């Protein structure tokens, strides 16, 4: 971690990573993150973004399309790297990690919910929910019970052996949420989770998110829907690659 020498002002980072994290350490910390896509013309999707999200916070990121929301989610989800700036996840600097290490961090600490659900159509609901545990080292014996537990939590225990194609949109998104939480992530990232859903099912998903938040999960929801964003305890507005807190 030579990068830590370059940032001596972050004292908690010098603590061993296996030790219990100090309460003050934010779950997510972006510092002066810029992501530019080489042109011509060169596009700066994020311009000097600094965001800090504490453990257990429920944050929505709202902004019009083209404002850099997806780029931000990709960076937060370790699917992309910032061009400039640093990103700490759970206090650990991610810039120095190899691709395989980043995959391991994704597997163990992050959960994803996508607008398009991304369920595997030829696998049953239960198999879909078990999929992330294949990669994150969950003890084999616990995998099925954890998946059933997660499905129970989203209210789909009666759909365990169904194929995703036979479910409604809201049910599919609930399966996706179950898949994301079954692997017990620290942070749940949701990219337009209600983008493909109608108002009623959207509300169901948002209720589910609030329950998860109440259980202590750190949630980041990216949306362009003001109604969805208002459900979060904290709102961050993204416009033209710059962030601003909104009350």
């Amino acid at each position, binding site marked *: 971690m*030579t*990068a830590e020498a*370059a*940032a001596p002002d972050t004292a908690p980072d010098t603590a061993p*990573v*296996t030790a219990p*994290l100090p309460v003050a350490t934010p779950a997510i910390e972006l*510092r*002066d993150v810029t992501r530019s896509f080489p042109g011509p013309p060169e596009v700066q999707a994020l311009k000097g973004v600094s965001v800090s999200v504490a453990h257990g916070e429920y944050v929505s990121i709202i902004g019009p399309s083209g404002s850099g929301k*997806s780029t931000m989610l*990709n960076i937060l*989800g370790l*699917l*992309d*790297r*910032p*061009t*400039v*700036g*640093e990103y700490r996840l*759970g*206090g*650990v*600097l991610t*810039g*120095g*990690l*190899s*691709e*395989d*290490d980043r*995959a*391991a*961090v*994704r*597997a*163990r*600490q992050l959960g*994803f919910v*996508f607008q*398009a*659900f*991304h*369920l*595997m*159509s*030829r*696998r049953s609901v239960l198999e879909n929910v078990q*999929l*992330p545990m*294949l*990669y*994150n*080292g*969950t*003890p*084999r014996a616990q995998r099925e019970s954890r998946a059933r537990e997660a499905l129970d939590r989203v209210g789909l225990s009666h759909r365990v052996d169904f194929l995703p194609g036979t479910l409604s949109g809201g049910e599919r998104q609930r399966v996706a949420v179950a*898949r994301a939480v079954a*692997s017990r992530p620290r942070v749940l990232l949701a*990219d337009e989770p209600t983008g493909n859903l109608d108002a009623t099912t959207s509300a169901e998903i948002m209720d589910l998110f609030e329950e998860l938040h109440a259980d202590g999960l750190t949630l980041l929801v990216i949306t362009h829907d003001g109604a969805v964003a208002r459900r979060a305890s904290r709102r961050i507005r993204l416009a033209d690659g710059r962030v601003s807190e909104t009350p």
Partner: protein
Amino acid sequence: MSEAGAPRAQGRHRSWLRWGGHRWSPLSWSGLGRSRRPDTPPDGPPVDPDDRFRFSDLLGEATADIGSRPGRLVTTIVGTVLGIAALVATIGFAQTAAGQIAKQFDRTAATQLVVTPATASTGGGATVATGALPWDAVPRLERLAGVESAALLAEVPLPDAVITAVPVNDPSQPPTATPPLYAASAGLLDTLGGQLSTGRFFDAGHDLRADRVAVLGARAAERLGVQRVDTQPSVFIDGIAYAVLGVLDSVDVRAELLNAVLIPTGTARADFGLAVPGDAQARIAIGAGPQLRSQAALALAPDDLASLEVRAPDARSELGRDVQADVNGVFVILGVIVLLAGGVGIANVTLLSVMERVGEIGLRRAIGATGRQIAGQFIAESVVIGLLGGLIGAAVGVFAVVLVSAVRGWTPVVDPWTAVGGALLGAVLGLLAGGLPARRAARIEPVDALRGGT
């Protein structure tokens, strides 16, 4: 940290490029994706090795979707099935044909050994024998390992004598050609693989007692008007009556005996003054020829090896080898061409499958699969498809050989390793064909993949 961020962003493809390098080795399958994964991740407890993504997981993920689209699976493996079937059938037919030729060859000439006295040309152009076989040649030969049975055979010269079935001297009858007369020992029938149409062959007792008995060759019997032996017919050789014991129907070698009248050696010595036995004939085990060629002369004339000529077959059939090579050449090339087409088919369909499953790949990457795990999944899938094609192809090939052999009345001969090798060749084909699509799949960026639909 800003100074470290930019080079990192440029170097993000590095780990994919290294995929083809030393870190990928078939021997470390179980280590797929964990060679660089820290035992202690940035935080959290270490992962039990049993709970990591293992080869069995890879196999499970790779095979879970293979059967879900049977139509596509059939079109994918049909090329491999045809190619492997063509190769296995070609090799099988070659082996069957070689076995068939060897069988025919062996049954006749390859199991016959003939010892004759050496001959020399006289000044007048005639040939005379320069040596002689001993009368006890049969027991001497039968003591040799590899000799299954042996017999003596000699033509008895009959300058003026006639052989008839009726003792009537009719001066007005035109002279007819007399059947040749042979003296034989009792083991002749067994040695030549002969079959009798009726009656029996004379035995060692007849020989010893010099009984006046005869066995007729089939055509000689026809000429002499002898069809059955239960009426106790006789033939008259030089005016002496000989009881006909049996009629020789066929022999594997020395077909001239079918025209002849056979009498025991002892009888020929007593009645016609047969001085020396003509040749010794022996039926030998397959492959014993080269060894017996030298041993037979030693056993029969240890004092003068050059006085005997021994004719014995070579150990292997050159003819069979040539036929095998001819058959293999043409069809193996055809089979390999079909197989290549099959490989291209697997590569194409796997590539199509990668393109179709971009969303799935993106999802797997997002939830923590490494590029190598994705590549391994597609390679394993195409290996399984190739193995499946190889298994079916080998089965079809073997079945074709059995079927054709059954129709033609041959003995099907297929080396088991041909079938096993065919199936494995299919797997190797799948491995090669899966390489390119797997590499393509590993290079897919999760960000791009997730943007699209499922």
